[in-house]
């Protein structure tokens, strides 16, 4: 399909580095057959060897969204798996860690479509994030565990290892068609070891 034929929610493009990181995350958590299951469901099986592509090239957003929709269909009711996939997705997208503000900037600029992730407020122990039209959970009935895993792990990697991150937010009503607009709070806590006590 030509780019100019795409309309509305499916218009846009996604850096190959994002697609590669996502497929690597599937591979790590679900292994090769699990990754293939998602690509097969998305009718995108030809992407299974995408690692060889130029990471700065782009895939059309429509194709990327097909992969996410297939993921959400097959991993229905699998919140923990999706959260772990999100963490791995962060790991492979930013393998050396990154300042959290840069992570937010980069995820917005690597997935170019009608959506927005922004930091609303930041202080020493709490970061408030707004996600508008989240592309990872736009289907009714799908919670946003995957992107939450991504955000939590991205922040964890931006901190030193004596801090941990947990998250909380308003109760998610997945049957609300608007549920992919949400605010998430990431709480930063110092870890205590036996030696500290």
């Amino acid at each position, binding site marked *: 399909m030509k780019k100019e034929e795409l309309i509305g929610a499916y218009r846009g493009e996604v850096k190959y580095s994002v697609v590669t990181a996502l497929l690597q995350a599937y591979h790590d*958590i*679900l*292994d*090769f*057959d*699990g990754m*293939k*299951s*998602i690509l097969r*469901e998305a009718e995108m099986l030809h992407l299974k060897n995408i690692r060889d592509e130029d990471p700065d090239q782009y895939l059309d957003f429509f194709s990327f969204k097909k992969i996410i929709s297939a993921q959400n*269909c*097959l*991993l*229905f*009711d*699998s*919140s*923990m*798996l999706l959260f*772990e996939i999100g963490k791995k997705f962060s790991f492979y997208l930013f393998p050396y860690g990154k300042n959290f503000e840069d992570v937010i900037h980069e995820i917005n600029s690597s997935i170019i479509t009608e959506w927005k992730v922004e930091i609303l407020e930041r202080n020493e122990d709490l970061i408030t994030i707004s996600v508008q039209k989240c592309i990872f959970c736009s289907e*009714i*009935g799908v919670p946003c565990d995957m992107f939450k895993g991504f955000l939590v792990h991205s922040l964890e990697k931006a901190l030193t290892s004596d801090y941990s991150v947990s998250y909380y937010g308003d109760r998610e009503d997945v*049957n609300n068609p608007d549920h992919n607009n949400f605010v998430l709070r990431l709480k930063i806590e110092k870890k205590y070891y036996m030696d500290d006590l």
Partner: protein
Amino acid sequence: MNDIAKKWAIKLAVLGDPAVGKTSLINQYIQHRFKENYQPTLGVNILTKDMILDEINVETRLILWDIAGQDKYELTRQLFFEGCHGSLLVYDITRSSTFHGIETKWLDDFQKFARPDGEYILIGNKVDLKESRAVSFEQGSDLAKKINASDFFETSAKSGINVKEVFKNLALNVLKKFKA
């Protein structure tokens, strides 16, 4: 389970020791074909199948998780069970070790990590290999009663004997319980 658009989605796991025929059962059910060469599943193979159950007037989507039986997947496998409504516990009638594995391993894992009230059916596969049978029908039937399986079938993924029936039966049992 999801009742959006009057359609139910149920997550079913196919469990059992390596090479008991889990993938072959799913392939026979979905694609009506059987491959002679054995290729172990790497991690998990997930497929969907839409089904109309006239008996209870329900349209459902089965999300079938064909979960690798190898020990190396022990840790990640626990995550795969999350939210499972039902399971086919499969052994190979020609290998008694796979029969013992049902009680000592697969049922325990399913009950520990899937939904606590999940349904399960016991399956003795490879019934086409009668001359090599090591587990009798009665042994299978007795085990099904002992572990409170909702049903027991002997199947052949190769010839298709009882394959359609086991998936339909499990879907019906799950929906009767969870839809209520």
